[in-house]
């Protein structure tokens, strides 16, 4: 019987929820692959995470102790390679997260495995694994297969599968020693995000978010004023922060804040990159304004306007005096 290997992600002793989504992805193809589902926890503190991963359908938990607790990419890659050598899995699932993309390509390159990243859907056709991912800034989609590859390594896009929730139990927990490798980089500590200096965008119910499509810095002032008159809080996409137009505390997305309490999100000139959507696609009512009718943001919007942001904002300012 072959195996599907899920590599759990954790940081500072806490399981990252995307791991449970990978379990769902694994369970969805296990029958067709006639595979056992094994979850590997690489690194220190692994035992503490086993209860959360004792899920229905999981056949075995593999603990892989490492000399250091913090994530270290060479260490994770070596552990992944050793796990593949020991278990010969057909499929290896890793989150498409910052840490995931820091070691998954190394495992695939070193082992000569099949590889696809940021995959949002998986299926089997006969003995073939078929992975679906986006292309061309979310405007197209591709289906990939992996001819001639015994093992296929996949990084899975967060949010593509529902988290597995049904508790299981009784599966064996096996500790697997892997050979040490020389480590050429070391973790020297975390740097916490700066505290909410001005606002807490994650608390706001109504956000007006600006993206690169606003064109110029002066527009941030105009939209800020408009947002104020509408009773909204100003937020933004990442390039606006990178350009220094707004502080980091206003950024929505994977590396910024999540619009946790938001119920109405007006996106002005935001394309809808996956890392931005990560912070807002759950919002009940998204209204997107973009001059490109094919912009990805429209696929998560309830209402859409194909318009020039500057022109629309000028009109809106007259309507919210």
């Amino acid at each position: 019987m072959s195996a599907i290997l899920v590599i759990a992600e954790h940081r500072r002793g806490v399981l990252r929820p995307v791991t449970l989504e990978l379990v769902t992805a694994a369970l969805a193809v296990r029958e067709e692959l006639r595979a056992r589902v094994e979850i590997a926890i690489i690194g220190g503190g692994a035992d503490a995470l086993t209860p959360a991963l004792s899920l229905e359908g999981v056949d075995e938990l593999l603990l892989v102790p490492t000399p250091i607790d913090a994530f270290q990419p060479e260490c994770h890659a070596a552990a992944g390679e050793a796990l593949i050598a020991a278990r010969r899995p057909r499929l290896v699932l890793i989150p498409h997260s910052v840490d995931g993309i820091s070691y998954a390509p190394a495992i695939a390159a070193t082992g000569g495995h099949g590889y696809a990243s940021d995959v949002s859907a998986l299926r089997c056709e006969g003995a073939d694994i078929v992975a679906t991912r986006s292309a061309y800034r979310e405007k197209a989609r591709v289906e990939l297969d992996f001819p001639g590859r015994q093992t296929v390594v996949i990084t899975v896009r967060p949010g593509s599968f529902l988290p597995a929730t049904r508790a299981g139990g009784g599966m064996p927990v096996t500790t697997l020693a892997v050979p040490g490798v020389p480590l050429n980089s070391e973790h020297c500590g975390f740097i916490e995000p700066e505290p909410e200096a001005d606002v807490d965008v994650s608390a706001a119910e109504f956000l007006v978010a600006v993206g690169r499509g606003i064109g110029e810095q002066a527009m941030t002032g105009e939209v800020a004023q408009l947002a104020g008159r509408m009773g909204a809080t100003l937020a933004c996409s990442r390039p606006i922060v990178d350009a220094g137009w707004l502080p980091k505390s206003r950024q929505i997305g994977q590396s910024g804040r999540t619009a946790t309490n938001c119920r109405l999100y007006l996106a002005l000139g935001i394309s809808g990159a996956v890392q931005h959507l990560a912070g807002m696609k759950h919002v009940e009512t998204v209204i997107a304004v973009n001059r490109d009718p094919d912009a990805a943001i429209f696929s998560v919007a309830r209402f859409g306007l194909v318009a020039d942001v500057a022109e629309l904002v000028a009109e809106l300012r007259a309507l919210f005096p």
Partner: protein
Amino acid sequence: MRILVGVKQVLNLDEEFEMRGDGLDVDQDYCDRALNEWDDYALEEALRIRERGGGDIEVVAATVGGEEATAELRKCLAKGADRGVRVWDDCLRDCDGMMVAHVLAAIVRREDPALVLTGVQGADHGQAQTGVAVAALLGWPWAAVVRALEFSADAGEAIARRELEGGLEECIRIRCPAVLTIQVGINTPRYASLRGVTQAAGRPVDTPAFERLGIDAAAIASARASRVRRMYVPQKPRPRMIEGSVREQAAELAALIRDIRGDRR
């Protein structure tokens, strides 16, 4: 000392694009081409290291791409790179990212730099794999998603900040030579000056064949890690569109917002 920056020419689809006859990619006549945004930051970081470090640092921009990708190398030269390298072979038509990584690794072996920088990902497909795969193939140290960097050639190491999720960052110390993938926002990329553009015309772009890199088409082709079965335009959920003149759109939008907000108050 040398810093090598791996750059990619990315394709942006026109509004009215079409699929290629075989259904495996878009018809490239419907694309415009640009330097990958992330790579622009990687190049800028290399140029800054050179400027801080004095005269004896050479910045080489390298790309795996056809003749049309020369335009992107010229942009890098105009911004200040000293030299360009472009590698192409017919076996790379419809190649996957792993094949690119193998070719880039061969370029790095030949150039023998003290540091390799690439972007975190390509803006077109977001695969986020090249830099890390190159490092693994070389057996070099690496770090991904770097948003602050202090490189010390003398100490043979770098101190870097990796950007994690939710605004958290991690500080690392890494031995060099290493491959680092650079995150947008690490710096503010410069624009090419007119003088830079003129100077760039005189700077060399080398186009070594596979043999000169010690690789061959069969080996590169066998590095393929995935194959495209088909590419298609997905049926995406469409929102209700608010149409009309901008004035009409604004009026309807204002009413809609008041309506939604009113319900809640």
